[in-house]
């Protein structure tokens, strides 16, 4: 696979030219934060950022997705018959996402693309996506990707990895999809040995800058009922306001709700992100609720990520170490602290 070097201007020009074949998504600065948007004429991509506030999961798994449409008009020959809403699943390129967020997609994939069922919307959008990652020269203090099987320049789940070498990007193709995308870019040159070794140095320096580490290797061997019955959950949940911010920002939270909406006689079946933090999530029609207490919902979120998922897939924790939940939790609940509590129980 090829390694190419582009000047930063060349790279941005090239990305713009990709719009004829891809829906291109780039990070932009919006207020105090960055977010991914569709690249258009007026868009100013900004690849000089730490991470977006929201993860890019919505580019494959929108917050709200129209699944089916139907008519509730009894005179319509297709009355009450659901039909899949027509969508564009053409190629899309996500430029500049962080390696942790690519790792997040791989985690979510185990849920939406499994041997028994394939979620048609998630799978089609994911397969149509080319993920061009940007290594993290300056990881945040809340980044703990290297504790959960990733790293600031981790390649897994990416199609291309970019190294920021001050005035240039070194683009490393990692998959066929990645090579195809790079081949469509004008300019650039084959990376020299000097540039390759500079990229290695940047990578090594970044790995050393990850100061936040937590041991996730003990979780698999813990007894699930002992953890479930551990006394610390009530204390931990005391401050939680069940706002759901952690689930909303998380690149690996995948829970959803399905709702029907009807306007006059035209109906849609829609799925929306949902969260285990909300009591309605599990409320039975009878009024019974297996997770009626706040601490039960907090416990569910952490046990799902750090124990149930670990046991179910045998492939590490359901966390990419991006640190968003740590940064944005309004009451400072820290998943790394929860892991420590679980480790020492």
């Amino acid at each position, binding site marked *: 696979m090829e390694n190419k070097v582009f000047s930063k201007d060349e790279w941005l020009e090239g990305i713009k030219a990709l719009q004829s074949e891809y829906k291109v998504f780039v990070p932009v600065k919006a207020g105090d934060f960055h977010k991914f948007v569709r690249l258009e004429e007026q868009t100013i991509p900004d690849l000089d950022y730490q991470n977006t506030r929201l993860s890019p999961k919505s580019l494959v798994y929108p917050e709200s997705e129209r*699944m*089916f449409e*139907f008519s*509730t008009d009894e005179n319509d020959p297709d*009355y*009450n*018959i*659901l039909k*899949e809403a027509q969508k564009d699943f053409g190629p899309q390129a996500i430029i500049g996402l962080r390696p942790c967020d690519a790792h997040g997609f791989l985690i979510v994939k185990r*849920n*939406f693309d*499994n041997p*028994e*069922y*394939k*979620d*048609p919307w998630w*799978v*089609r959008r994911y397969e149509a996506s080319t993920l061009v990652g940007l290594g993290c020269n300056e990881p945040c203090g809340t980044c703990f990707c290297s504790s959960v099987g990733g790293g600031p320049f981790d390649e897994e789940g990416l199609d291309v990895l970019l190294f920021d070498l001050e005035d240039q990007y070194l683009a490393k193709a990692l998959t066929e999809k990645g090579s195809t995308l790079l081949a469509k870019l004008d300019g650039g040159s084959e990376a020299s040995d000097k540039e390759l070794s500079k990229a290695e140095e940047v990578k090594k320096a970044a790995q050393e800058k990850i100061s936040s580490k937590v041991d996730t290797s003990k979780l698999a061997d813990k007894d*699930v*009922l002992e953890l*479930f019955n551990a006394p610390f959950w009530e204390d931990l949940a005391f401050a939680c306001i069940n706002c759901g911010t952690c689930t909303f920002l998380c690149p690996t939270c*995948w*829970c*959803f*709700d*399905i*709702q*029907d909406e*009807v306007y006059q006689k035209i*109906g849609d*079946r829609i799925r929306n992100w*949902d969260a*285990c933090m909300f009591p309605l*999530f*599990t*409320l*039975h*029609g*009878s009024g*019974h609720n*297996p*997770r009626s207490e706040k601490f*039960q919902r907090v416990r*569910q979120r952490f*046990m*799902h990520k750090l*124990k*149930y*998922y670990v*046991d*179910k897939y045998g492939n590490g924790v359901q966390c990419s170490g991006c640190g968003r939940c740590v940064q944005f939790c309004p009451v400072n609940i820290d998943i790394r602290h929860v892991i420590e509590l679980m480790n020492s129980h």
Partner: protein
Amino acid sequence: MDNPYLPYPVRIEEIITETEDKNLKTFKFVFLNPEDEEKFSYIPGQFAELSVPGKGEIPIGIASSPTEKGFVSFTVNKVGLVTTHLHNMKVGEIMGIRGPLGNWYPWEEMEGKNVVIIGGGFAFTTLRSSIVYMLHPDNRPKFEDIIVVYGARSPGMLLYKDELAAWEQRDDIQMHITVDATDDPDWKYNVGFVPTITEQKITSSENAIAIVCGPPIMIKFTQPVLEKLGFPPERIILSLEMRMKCGIGMCGRCNIGDQYVCKDGPVFSLAQLKKMPPEY
């Protein structure tokens, strides 16, 4: 790509009001496309999502048996938005069914064994499916004794009254119907709670497997009775209910520990449940 969220269109063929409070109705559905009936190939114990366009979907146990051809039926308790709307729908209306979903009772394990069926209230639906399935001439020889304890609050709250009466007349199934209380002088069956009647009527756990479906309180008090009879937890089979949406293990709300009730259940043995967090 197959879309596991897309319901098969069906027509309501018949609606039967089952109980005196009119809160339980059985809906018989016919598939609009005959080939969908083939695809909807199910085993007793499974459930499906009933889809009322504009209102939503609800997970309901399949009450018909795969030995009954040409239709599929569900008994629905009126509790929320979708079920209330469904109760107001009429014969001939079009809606959807998505499934079959979930696992089933352990039929292979039950072969050659005595089958003890214990049901309470409106949780008798997949048990009805199972009884009809076992009584089919092709299947009856596969099982030894079939013993049924079924209870409801009052005679008028029993489901499938005509079938219960017909089964009472047969000699290849032992029926123990009971009600919590009644002032009907003509009531000719048992009076008493399901755990009590189970204790009186079931005499042995030898070569037997028990399937228990009912409200949590019934399950709670039946469990020690079965354990006293010598049923090991592996041979006590339960079917659980949970709030569900997707029915295929993706939406995340019906888990108990790492198991999804919709995909890994709804049928679990007591032995399995004892290893899972008690959060249901």
